[in-house]
């Protein structure tokens, strides 16, 4: 094993103090990188980052400053299990804490289904390093050789007699670990070595009892002494700028209410000492807005506009063959597919409490990137980042929609103005109208079948808006847009199939409508197009859709084998190929998420002519996402993806006209309801692969396409525009 040395590198001393280390025991810590401020925190963790996340307490338990935000995906539980596995602990011995921004160096925003896939390794290494350091201390204390100190629950034992608990091995002396060689520390989490086998267990969320009794604190539940209540009149249209505001004639604000006008930051609002009078006060405000002159330009997102002159910003694959188009021996299959703007619609609308004082700024909010929020708030208030502390809270759903926290920024500005803590709570309307959205996608695919029923060429073009760079501020955006292809928009756009002649081009066009991360980014819209035309091709070739896919998954790689594997499994699971009743249909689709997780889904769809409805009766899903740390959490994520997929296929659509979102609540923006939810059958493929892979967004993309394909099988009509319903299918 490499040498692990105790040093006192106090460049991180602040974090030590803030994490209570000096009082409580040993913190493992080393130098961490800085990140670029005021952009979402995108740097991947380095292995040594993990050392700032663990702390041994004098009672022998381990405190884990989890570098992932909890929004229901359960990543902190899975990572706690990995810590437990490395350190031979059970669940009661791990205290998992969400660090405030002054308790941990910055870590990457919680997005992209990578909490386990990307963070398992540094977390495991840190815990394993800590374990080996403690073993050395046990050796030093006892005078025994390191080799005689065997792993035991919560410590080490020698010759089956002496036990050295972790708590016995540390004192309150100041020790900061610096590990300079990790490569040779043995990791247990993917080797099945721990007697407890924490990995693979169905550990419940440590919060579950508090959730079912209503005690968990979300952003909306925070209350500070002396707190006031604020709200904002938000712009009537995207891009509107505040000129001035006043209290309407013949009305007046009450005592204890303050009008806040901040033209520089485009904010007008009221702060009230009484929460129940806030809405009325807001009605009395008359802002003057300058509206943007240009039309919002949504027609920019129509594929036809670009196709004519082949004018695309980015080319991902450039091996097309125009000569084959119209070739006598090749049957051409072409189709256009579109998907809609969509909202995150997390059940908890955004909220935050901000306390802005001379001595420092503190914000309580649920967010996916607390360091980004810190940077933005600091810039807004023209304060040092070091003056700002974000206390992240459990989110009532994230799905990409909490990378920003606009309520935190509003609360910060209001609090700065009144000098007291201020709470801002968005209502549902604000959440629908003023968040950022999944952009719509417009696809065109030309493809052709040769005489043997193989795909001869595949020319795919699409247009949408930036997603990963959707939130970049205006000035920077114009530069970025010129040089950088948005990978989020293109996620999942490359077909997994062996096709000799492929061309794939796209444009990511910025419009007035704010766009950003939404579950799976481009994966579902792109997979919908790919897997729909695969179905159309199979049908044209007179082939079974499952067999047709398998016939095009050729080549050696592991990916081909695994994707074929889940396709076959979902086929077995669903009884693929059996005959079904009239107006019923089975549809299949598959996808590889982020080049790692392989998922295949079969949908059973029923057409109900009397009720004029399309019903998803059942979904089968086979997923290979590598090592399963916690089966309950993974199954829950898959379940969430399947339900979300039904919503995208059949219900979800946000519309924008004249720079205004038309939908304001769940009556017009519908998400799937309990009675519409299908029966599900989920199979996590047993794999010896020792790496856990992306889970949180993986199963969603093929679900949408499988439902569309099943609707075709049931009705003979192909949904090419989402969402679809009975009426759109039959007219």
């Amino acid at each position, binding site marked *: 094993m490499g040498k692990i040395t105790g040093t006192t590198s106090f460049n991180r001393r602040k974090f030590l103090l803030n994490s209570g280390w000096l009082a409580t025991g040993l913190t493992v810590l080393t130098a961490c990188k800085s990140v670029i401020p005021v952009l979402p925190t995108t740097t991947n963790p380095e292995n040594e980052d993990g050392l700032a996340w663990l702390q041994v307490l004098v009672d022998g338990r381990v405190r884990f400053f989890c570098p992932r935000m909890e*929004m*229901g*995906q*359960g990543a902190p539980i899975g990572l706690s299990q990995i810590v437990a596995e490395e350190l031979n602990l059970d669940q009661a011995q791990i205290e998992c804490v969400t660090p405030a921004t002054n308790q941990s160096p910055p870590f990457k925003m919680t997005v992209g289904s990578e909490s386990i896939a990307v963070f398992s390794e540094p977390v495991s290494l840190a815990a394993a390093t800590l374990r080996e350091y403690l073993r050395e201390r046990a050796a030093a204390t006892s005078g025994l050789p390191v080799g005689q100190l065997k792993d035991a629950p919560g410590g080490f034992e020698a010759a089956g007699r002496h036990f050295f608990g972790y708590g016995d091995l540390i004192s309150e002396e100041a020790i900061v670990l610096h590990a300079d060689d990790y490569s040779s520390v043995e990791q247990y989490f993917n080797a099945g070595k721990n007697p407890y086998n924490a990995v693979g267990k*169905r550990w*419940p*969320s440590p*919060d*579950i*009892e508090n*959730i*079912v*009794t*209503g*005690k*968990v*604190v*979300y952003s*909306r*539940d925070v*209350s500070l002494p002396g707190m006031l209540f604020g709200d904002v009149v938000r712009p009537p249209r995207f891009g509107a700028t505040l000129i001035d505001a006043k209290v309407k004639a013949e009305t007046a604000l009450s005592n204890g209410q303050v009008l806040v006008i901040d033209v520089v930051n485009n904010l007008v609002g009221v702060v009230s000492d009484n*929460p*129940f009078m806030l809405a009325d006060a807001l009605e009395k405000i008359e802002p003057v807005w300058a509206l943007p002159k240009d039309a919002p330009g949504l027609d920019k997102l129509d594929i036809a506009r670009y196709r004519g002159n082949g004018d695309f910003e980015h080319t991902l694959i450039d091996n097309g063959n125009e000569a084959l188009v119209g070739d006598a021996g090749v049957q051409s299959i072409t189709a256009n597919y579109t998907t809609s703007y969509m909202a995150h*619609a*997390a*059940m*908890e*609308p955004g909220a935050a409490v901000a306390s802005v004082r001379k001595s420092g700024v503190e914000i309580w909010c649920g967010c996916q990137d607390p360091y980004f929020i810190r940077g933005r708030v600091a810039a807004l208030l023209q304060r040092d980042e070091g003056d700002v502390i974000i206390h992240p809270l*459990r*989110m*009532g*759903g*994230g*799905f990409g929609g909490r990378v920003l926290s606009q309520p935190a920024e509003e609360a910060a500005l209001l609090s700065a103005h009144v000098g007291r803590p201020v709470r801002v*709570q968005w*209502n*549902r309307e604000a959440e629908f109208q003023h968040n950022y959205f999944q952009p719509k996608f417009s696809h065109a695919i030309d493809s052709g079948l040769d005489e043997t029923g193989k795909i001869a060429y595949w020319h795919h073009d699409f247009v949408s808006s930036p997603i990963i760079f959707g939130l970049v501020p205006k000035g920077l955006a114009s530069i970025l847009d010129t040089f950088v292809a948005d990978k989020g928009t293109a996620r999942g756009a490359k077909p997994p199939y062996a096709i000799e002649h492929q061309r794939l081009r796209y444009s990511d066009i910025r419009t007035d409508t704010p766009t950003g991360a939404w579950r799976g980014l481009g994966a579902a819209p792109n997979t919908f197009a790919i897997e729909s035309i695969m179905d159309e091709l199979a049908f044209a070739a007179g082939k079974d859709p499952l067999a047709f896919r398998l016939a095009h998954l050729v080549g050696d790689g592991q990916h081909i084998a695994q994707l074929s594997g889940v396709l076959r499994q979902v086929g077995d699971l669903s009884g693929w190929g059996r005959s079904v009743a009239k107006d019923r249909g089975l549809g299949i689709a598959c996808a590889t998420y982020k080049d790692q997780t392989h998922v295949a889904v079969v949908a059973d769809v029923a057409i109900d002519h009397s009720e004029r409805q399309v019903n998803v009766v059942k979904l089968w899903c086979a997923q290979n996402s590598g090592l399963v740390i916690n089966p*309950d959490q993974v199954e*829950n*994520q898959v*379940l*969430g*993806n*399947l*339900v*979300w997929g039904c919503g995208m296929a059949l219900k979800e659509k946000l519309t924008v006209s004249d720079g205004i979102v038309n939908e304001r*609540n*769940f*009556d017009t923006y519908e*998400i*799937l*309801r*309990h*009675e*519409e*939810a299908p*029966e*599900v059958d989920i199979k996590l493929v047993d794999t010896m692969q020792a790496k856990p892979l992306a889970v949180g967004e993986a199963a969603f993309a093929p679900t949408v396409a499988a439902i569309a394909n099943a609707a075709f099988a049931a009705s003979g009509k192909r949904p090419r525009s989402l969402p679809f319903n009975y009426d759109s299918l039959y007219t």
Partner: protein
Amino acid sequence: MINLNGKATRVEKVLYDVSLLDFIRDQAMLKGTKFGCGQGFCGACTVHLDGIAQRACQLKMSEVRGHKVTTIEGLSALTDDEGLHPVQRAWIAEAVPQCGYCQPGQIMTAAALLAANPTPGDEEIRAGMSGNLCRCGTYSRIHRAVARAAQER
């Protein structure tokens, strides 16, 4: 006055126009009942009014004076023993929650459903639970938990 989780609670006249949800959260300072939509579409704010599941965002304090209101914080008191309500226990056993935000409302709806119909069939569970949205998509686990609670009661 209202009876809130067994306690007589005064309602000032100036608060008659406030919604029961706002009263519970910002006057009684019980934060377990959630705001989801404010317009009766989502069920996050579900409480029991005289034992019946109701949307707290849709009731004004003037309408609930003299009535008995139970929130998620008071639910476990409805059982004989000191512990959790059987529905809460079933929710834990089935590991239902993801983000958890909708779950107090789901649990209150389920508890009222089972109080009215101790042995609901699948269709009755589906219909009875359909007014409560869950964006995390926990529906099939909710369904299992309701069925389990019905069995174990």
